């Protein structure tokens, strides 16, 4: 069977597109190609990644303009068909703006941009994005954002927590989810969530930057490997 095929959606202002392709294709050996936001054909892709960056400069609000881009209708259809969609950083912001994920990402509580390594506790391994990890184990990867402070109304947060839809939470090196390990002030130290159907994930940290020991760690690979595994399973008769 051929390798899983990732589509990497590129908006003007996207900059993690090349890093995602590098991690997914060069490092992990899956197929990956760019999908320009005006190209409306998603045939042949097993999974989509919405990478990080500043789509349309993030003017107005992060992700607020990109959600109106023509490709987003197709992304919505793709997700509705049950296929995996991962939004990383700006991609997470766009998915929230597009209503594919609940809540919003507001300015970091300390009002500064943050680029540093964080530890994530994996809360749910029963998802297409995390089953290669172990519950309670930490994954180490970088963040790079100014608006990563996840917030939602109380009911939404409770629903997310109750249904195991919080997939990643900021934690210390020992895996304790403490506010001192939270780089942006997000509610309940949330770093990544999935939709109700479980096939759309948004996360602020950058798994594509944790793909090689030389660059500081390989924990991000588990995310793309999990997606690849679930795609192959999906393909089985």
């Amino acid at each position, binding site marked *: 069977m051929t390798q899983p095929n990732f589509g990497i959606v590129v908006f*003007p*202002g996207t*900059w*993690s597109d*090349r*890093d995602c392709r*590098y*991690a997914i294709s*060069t490092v992990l050996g899956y197929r990956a190609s760019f999908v*320009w936001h*005006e190209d409306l054909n998603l045939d042949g892709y097993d999974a989509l990644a919405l990478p*990080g*960056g*500043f789509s*349309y*400069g*993030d*003017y107005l609000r992060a992700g607020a303009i990109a959600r109106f881009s023509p490709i987003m209708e197709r992304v919505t259809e793709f997700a509705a068909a049950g296929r995996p969609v991962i939004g990383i950083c700006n991609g997470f912001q766009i998915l929230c703006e597009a209503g594919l994920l609940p809540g919003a990402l507001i300015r970091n509580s300390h009002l*500064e*941009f*943050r*680029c*540093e390594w964080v530890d994530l506790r994996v809360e749910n391994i029963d998802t297409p994005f995390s089953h290669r990890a172990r519950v309670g184990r930490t994954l180490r990867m*970088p963040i*790079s954002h*100014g608006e990563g402070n996840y917030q939602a109304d109380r009911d939404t947060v409770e629903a997310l927590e109750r249904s195991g839809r919080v997939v990643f939470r900021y934690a210390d090196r020992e895996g304790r989810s403490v506010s001192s390990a939270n780089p942006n002030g997000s509610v309940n130290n949330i770093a990544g969530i999935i939709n109700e159907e479980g096939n759309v994930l948004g996360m602020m940290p*950058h798994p*594509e*930057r944790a*793909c*090689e020991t*030389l*660059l500081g760690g390989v924990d991000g690979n588990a995310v793309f490997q999990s997606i690849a595994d679930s795609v192959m399973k999906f393909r089985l008769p």
Partner: protein
Amino acid sequence: MSDKQSAIGVSQETLDEVALSRAEYEAISERLGRDPSPLELGLFGSLWSEHCGYKHTKRLLRTLPVQSPRLLVTPGAENAGVIDIGDGLAIAMKIESHNHPSAVEPFQGAATGVGGIVRDIFAMGARPIALLNSLRFGSPEDPLNRFLFHGVVAGISSYGNCIGVPDVGGEIAFDDSYSGNPLVNAMCVGLIENGRMLSASAREPGDLLALVGADTGRDGIHGASGLASRAFEEEAEMRSAVQVGNPFLEKSLIEACLEAAKLDGVMGMQDLGAAGLASAAIEMAHRSGMGLRLDLSRVTRREEGMTPYEVMLSESQERMLLALRPGAEGEVFALFRKWDLGAQVIGEFTRGGNVLISDGPELSAESPIDVLVDAPEYVLSSSKPDWLTKMQDEDPARLPLPSEAPAGVLLRLLSSPNISSRRAVFRQYDHQVQNNTVIPPGGDAALLRLKGTKKAIAVSVDCNGRLCYLDPYAGSMIAVAEACRNVSCTGAEPIALTDGLNFGNPETSDVQYQLTESVRGIRDAALAFGVPVVSGNASMYNDSRGHSIHPTPIIGALGLLEDVNAHVTSGFKGDGDLIAVLGAECAWDHPGGLAGSEFAAVLHSWTGGRPFIDLAFEVRVQMLCRRLALEGIARSAHDCSNGGLAVAVAESAIIGGCGAALVEPLPERWDAAMFGETQSRVVISIRPDRLGDLLEIAREYGIPVSAAGTVGGDRLRFAEAIDVSLEEAGRAWSAGLAAATSD
């Protein structure tokens, strides 16, 4: 030609506006055979400005070494220097200042400084892969300087993060001489693959000139001739001369231009920076050995009613010029449309050497190009000021011993604004995007691997303005040596330099001496290292409130490491390792090392003495350091500079999370011993069983080595004098910068 003025009629006010002297005006009139039109006067004002015409520095800059088998373009001939690094790859690099705009409006000044240097790099067909910045501010105790500091950092963060180029390093220093006149120098490094280098020139007459990117507005007029080329006191009045950046547009422009660079119809590319179209179009034509015909009515404008003068001198950001083969417009412009960017043909290159500028049917300027670009050159005085001799003759040994205990002095230095950790700043910069950053900011130099090869490049920017003030010649040699030393500490070999010359008013004799001596120092050091100075920038008139800044020749160094796996970092690696100091028989420094030191400035508010460096020795110390990296003997390497040996060892310990003990007994001058800043020293750590190898190799290079102590435990113990916990030292070092700059 309309609106002619007679020489008698030109007012001092008009001349001031374009920053030309009356003698220069007369020279222009004589060479044109008539008086210049208003637009012509604006063109001369810009092209003959210090910023574009280098009239005070050109003679000196010609003396810098430019020989290297790796050199792919003649320094100064293009927008950036380009160095061959093998495997079909080349590196473009340049540093540029944006001091005056940042003094007036720190956020936009710094942001557009980043934007400008990035355009210089991708104009060469290079993908920008790293940014660095070198910043100087006055004392953070003054709220104005804190405002400038936060504004500049926010501006760099805002612009750099948005364009997807990692900001991998730099330096920040505080000194009163920069009060109200901050230095904001940005360096960019780009990668050229498959020999696809572009030139900022046209191929043949008839080639079209296209303006792409943002529309042209009234922003930034007189940026080059006004802000950057004369002394100004009423800075608030110049605020309208600062441009506003749009990093999103820049990101699209990078991608569109790099795609365009691959098309056959694109002959050349040039960025629009200081003096806008005036400088860019005329330089491009001059470089091509051609003339130029421009029709300004074809320039898409942001505002109604702009005059030809305003269109030519606008410094609107995020614009580029392309030289196109006729007929290529369709394909090229479609590409820019894909990225939602404007693109128009605004003129053509012509045979002969005339510049003809019209606005529709009306001719606005006509001049031989040779006259336009032939800025006068001034000879500088190089007599040493008496006050400097006096200052150099002061003897650091006459400083009293501090009354404070040694541990307290160490903690004070570790937390001081010039030494403490820069993490509070660099974590606001994306330093990882593009997935190449092997050594992130916080090390001696940043290290970037080059995908698809085993190679890596190391980059660093350095200058100690205080040392350059005390001795511009030695201080500038030290700036080169330190930039190279930082690169060597990673294991990489320095192969190219770029220089950002930041000085006061070059019309004064003191500054002329500083400038002359400084360039001589850079030259001699570059020759000693055998590396070319491939690009550079000069920023003059850095005076504020009646005083000049310290002479600050900021040096950017590029190093090449053939095998990225051989790289070395600055933190200690594990208990039991030995600490050795390369370049010193005895680990502890002598009183002469306090000349211009951070210790003397922090503890005694004293700046004096004479800095010294032996270049031949320095070169060998660095060769030794690299050899130890390559042979896997050095487990860590850290440059000994600000704060001396005690600070260098403390930093390696804090970064590595391992304690350290230095065993040699201290002399009576324990302050100089621990905190002296004698040059050419590197702190390394090795496994104990490699000591024999270390000493044997060091002998080969004729370099003394001191086995100074051991790594281990959770305390810093320096002889009998200091015993502090690593945690306490780490806290002081980590919190210092934020504490000093918070309101």
